[in-house]
């Protein structure tokens, strides 16, 4: 079976500035992977390339063996760093919208999670706080039965209790066929949920290894290692 995500000498430049240079990376199904790196290291660029929102300057990126396009979008569930939902819609309307868009979207799952987080489906998005809006968006993304979840900073704006619930949602949704890629700065909060980590630095892969191997070899947490490697 093809790896769910594969980068071969992937390069992306914005004008003369290099965002990613010569990345080789493989992500297998059934893994939960942390994409970690300081600001400007290329995390979001990589995720956008995987979604076909950007095109590579060089090399290639493959989703389940295909270039990003209509077919891969069916199996990729993407949480962007910024919200793109229409403010005037109610939560329920957005759910209907997703149902129309994605055949693998499960409205029941979404309503169940909304209830757990005490979010009223009839509320309009513009009346929701920033954190609640982020929760709604993550619920939408996790309610799809996708093969690859790409979550760009999913827990940055929500309170610690909701953060725990979201991480539990990711664990509960786990299945061997799907991979989850989470980009974040909040490493300590998520590291026990991760199988592997990918450290990006200046557009290159600085390290890719399993969490427990790092802890075993280095005798420190991923958070501790990150602070050491990227010390300012």
């Amino acid at each position, binding site marked *: 079976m093809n790896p769910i995500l594969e980068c071969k000498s992937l390069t992306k430049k914005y004008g003369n500035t290099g965002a990613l240079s010569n990345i080789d990376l493989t992500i297998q199904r059934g893994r939960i992977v942390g994409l970690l790196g300081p600001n400007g290291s290329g995390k979001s660029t990589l995720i956008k390339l995987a979604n076909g929102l950007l095109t590579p300057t060089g090399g290639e990126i493959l989703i389940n063996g295909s270039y990003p396009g209509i077919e891969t979008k069916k199996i990729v569930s993407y949480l962007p760093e910024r919200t793109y939902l229409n403010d005037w819609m109610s939560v329920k309307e957005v759910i209907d919208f997703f149902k129309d868009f994605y055949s693998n979207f499960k409205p029941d799952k979404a309503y169940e999670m909304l209830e757990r987080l005490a979010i009223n489906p009839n509320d309009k998005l513009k009346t929701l706080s920033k954190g609640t809006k982020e929760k709604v968006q993550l619920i939408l993304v996790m309610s799809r039965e996708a093969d690859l979840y790409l979550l760009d900073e999913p827990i940055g704006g929500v309170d610690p209790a909701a953060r725990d619930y979201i991480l539990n949602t990711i664990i509960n949704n786990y299945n061997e066929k799907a991979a989850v890629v989470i980009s974040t700065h909040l490493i300590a909060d998520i590291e026990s949920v991760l199988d592997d980590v990918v450290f990006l630095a200046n557009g290159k892969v600085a390290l890719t290894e399993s969490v427990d191997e790092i802890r075993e070899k280095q*005798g420190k947490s991923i958070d501790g290692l990150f602070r050491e490697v990227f010390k300012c």
Partner: protein
Amino acid sequence: MGWKFKADRPIYTQLVEQIELRIVSGMYSPGSKLPSVRDLAAEASVNPNTMQKALAELEQNGLLYAQRTSGRYITEDEKMILKVKDTIALEEIKSFLQKMSELGFNSQDTIYLIESVAKEMTK
């Protein structure tokens, strides 16, 4: 007993120890069914693959056994559970004595102190 993880060691070895502790303390009783990997992973907020690895190790050393279709069970071998309990106790004592010696107490002094504190606590 909550799940807690220290930063300096692999998560799966800590899971193994904490599940052992739950077995020897009787929280998971001999012969009873263990919750599913997914439920345990969610409860401990850890990756399901990591939990799987920990359970596989406990299976290997005999504290758990798998029944093909119905999941994992705690061993019924109470002797084995007692043995694990002793091992854990011995290790706790060793590490305590080590700390006391770093503080400058020899074994004799430490035992004397333990006795007097124990007396105090039973009063």
